[in-house]
């Protein structure tokens, strides 16, 4: 349910990792039946994960969800249209930074969280020992998207409610309810770990150039893949196969 919702939204995966890798790195398989004819495919693995600001492919996530740890279930309200993107200007509604505005720098849709730059921070003490008090790190705590923040209207820079509507061209946009202005999705949403804009990607030695990827070399032909390769390699088949039966 959540994966489908995540895929359908306009939110871009900043890490640019394949879905299969994210699932594989998170998976904890404790026991699995052998792939033999006399076994049914059964798996015993972890089903409940505690999602935090540590993303699910990191080692910290693995440490927080070690085998055997049982955490209380976190209730996450379903959100149909995800509406807060990286680079959005939002207004904070709770806490010591109430009323201030900031830019969203990280989106954690598994928990309906966003992290705003420079707001909602607190000091963390890490690395303390008996004779050493530890160091203090300033960390930004996440904010809940349904209760703690509000979008800012770009016409007057005030917080506003909004809804999703369609333009004449059929594009889905966020519209401020107070002024009717479209709140555009920021360009920062398209940034990933690998590039800032798609055309600013620096290609590597094993990458295929874009022109080669888009080149059309397929010619429709009445043959299977194997027949075509045989013809290409000059392999000739003169034998007539004997009749056989499939059952």
């Amino acid at each position: 349910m959540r994966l489908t919702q995540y895929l359908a939204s306009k939110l871009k995966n900043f890490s640019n990792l394949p879905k299969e890798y994210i699932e594989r790195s998170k998976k904890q398989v404790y026991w699995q039946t052998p792939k033999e004819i006399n076994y049914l495919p059964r798996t015993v693995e972890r089903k409940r994960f505690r999602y935090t600001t540590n993303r699910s492919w990191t080692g910290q996530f693995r440490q927080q969800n070690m085998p055997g740890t049982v955490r209380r279930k976190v209730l996450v309200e379903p959100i149909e249209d995800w509406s807060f993107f990286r680079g959005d200007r939002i207004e904070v509604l709770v806490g010591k930074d109430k009323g201030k505005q900031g830019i969203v720098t990280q989106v954690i849709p598994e928990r309906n969280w966003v992290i705003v730059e420079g707001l909602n921070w607190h000091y963390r003490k890490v690395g303390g020992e008996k004779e050493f008090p530890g160091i203090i790190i300033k960390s930004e705590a996440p904010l809940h998207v349904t209760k703690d923040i509000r979008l800012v209207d770009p016409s007057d820079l005030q917080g506003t409610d909004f809804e999703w509507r369609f333009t004449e061209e059929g594009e889905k946009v966020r519209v401020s309810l107070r002024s009717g202005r479209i709140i555009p999705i920021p360009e920062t949403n398209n940034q990933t770990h690998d590039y800032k804009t798609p055309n600013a990607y620096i290609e590597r030695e094993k990458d295929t150039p874009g022109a080669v990827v888009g080149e059309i070399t397929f010619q429709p032909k009445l043959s299977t893949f194997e027949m075509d390769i045989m013809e290409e390699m000059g392999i000739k088949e003169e034998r007539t196969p004997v009749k056989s039966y499939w059952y």
Partner: protein
Amino acid sequence: MSSALIKCLNLAKTVGNATVRSFLAAPKQPWQSCSAAALQTPHVQMPMQMHTSAVRRDLMEFFDDKKNWSENEVKVGRAWRTEELRIKSNKELHQLWFVLLKERNMLLTMEHECNDKMEVFPSPERIDKVKISMENLETVVRERNKAYHLLETGETGERPQKAVKNAFGLQVSYKACEHALPPFMNLKWIKSRNIGYGGRAVNRFLLKYREKLYNAKRKAKNRSRNEVMMILRRNPNFDLDVLRRQFPDVNVDKLRNEDKIRGHYVPKVGV
């Protein structure tokens, strides 16, 4: 029609054998050294020249470039998409398959060696990118073969499968095999075939098995119902239409009258 289908299947099988044999027996073919480094992982980018790599019959081809050994991250593009592979010719798909195969072998070798030496394997998502590309390539090849067989013979040309019940009464997928004899003459196959299931023990097993499946479904439904109750308990003004769409199994309107969705406080309305 069936005869033509069998002929195509045999031809496809012979092609596969001949291709493998020819590839192994002829190491000096020109296609082998063509564009080994290119056609690796695509990205939509500026046009540039395609570069090639020389043939090195060396075990070190199973290992990555030396300059990547101690890196924390190796940046590569994304996997090939199905629509990008559909516009490529069979020859290029054939070449790309072997490029991806070599890359996958290299990555798995590096992963194994890094695990042995307790080193960090950089960018393990490369394995998944290569795997996705290979799956998409196989999808395109199967599409083309299926289209040919459907056009020529009216059948898909793939191995026939059928859903049958095994000796315990559970449904499994039976995959047909190729035989030289027709089924009514194949006494060995007739004797080894499983026909039907029954008996008191099997019926009791099926009863318990269906109860297990029903219990799993019932628990899942109860989990959804409890989740909806907790959401309404904490958010009394939650949009009911969203809940109805997200939880189709739960009767949201009936739950509105339950005592459990009432919290311990009076919610602040309009504040």
